[in-house]
């Protein structure tokens, strides 16, 4: 049984906030052409998901949400490291910072 009273505000506020941040992240990935900013937008999306995990964990008094958030942080760290390595390699090989011009994998 969820306990909304345990949260500072109603759970709907957290859902909306998380949704808005996630959408901002999506907009960043779609609209920006700088791969570094795209990676940062992906971090925004990870964190929006994390916020929701923790809000629901608090609401249900169940720390499985904390474990999930921990896993998400780990995967986000791995993703950032590999993504940045790919960016460095692409820059090194093609001297290019625009993802639209790096379209080798395009069908």
């Amino acid at each position, binding site marked *: 049984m969820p306990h909304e009273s345990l949260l500072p505000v109603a759970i709907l506020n957290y859902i909306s906030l998380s949704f*808005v941040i996630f959408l*901002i992240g999506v907009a960043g990935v779609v609209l920006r052409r*700088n791969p570094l*900013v795209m990676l*940062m937008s992906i971090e925004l999306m990870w964190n929006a998901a994390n916020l929701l995990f923790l809000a629901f964990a608090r609401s249900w*008094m169940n*720390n499985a949400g904390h474990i999930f958030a*921990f896993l998400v942080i780990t995967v986000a760290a*791995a993703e950032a490291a590999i993504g940045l390595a790919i960016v460095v390699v692409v820059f090194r090989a093609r001297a290019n*910072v625009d993802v639209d011009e790096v379209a080798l994998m395009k069908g």
Partner: protein
Amino acid sequence: MIEFYILAFVLIASAIFVITAKKAVYSVVGLLVHFAALAVMYFSLAAEFLAVIQIIVYSGAILMLFVFVIALLSSGVAPFSAGPNRLPKIAGPALFAVIVILGFLIYGVAHVPAAAPHGAAQAAQSGTASIAGPVGAANVFGSVGDFGKALFTTNLLPFEITAFILMVAVIGVILLAGESAPYVQSRRRARIVEREMREAILRAGEE
């Protein structure tokens, strides 16, 4: 109550700043504010351990990685010593930002155990952790002890998988960007690529 809305405003504003900033470094600064505000919000959700992890891993490790990559890719474009000294101009705002963030953090830490007392009885009854008590005790929801117990007993396998994921990531990064990466054949070619990179960065900066 009001803290939530202040934090939500900071979170959304900094997120928008991240995706609209002209230079990647400014985006990193926006992301830093975002993560700090998020850590405060985690404190308000009684997730102390994850709030600290958020600051250490995200603001500490991941953002430093971003800054290093930006510095690496733009090295040679404008040496750090050549630019104008901006310190006098930004010292005031920077100090203000640090004080505000620290104030938020301290406020968040101070309010960790401030939970509704009527939830405690239900929590104790259902056998889960209680919500009120000294910070850090093992039976308080979201405390380091509580989280650690859950992580190393019921969720040991996910924790091990975490280690595996990080190992794969490290190996992948070394293979991709390591010393012997087979993308630059010779020193001469490396110098040409470096010059092209600089020009590309300059073009990207004007965007």
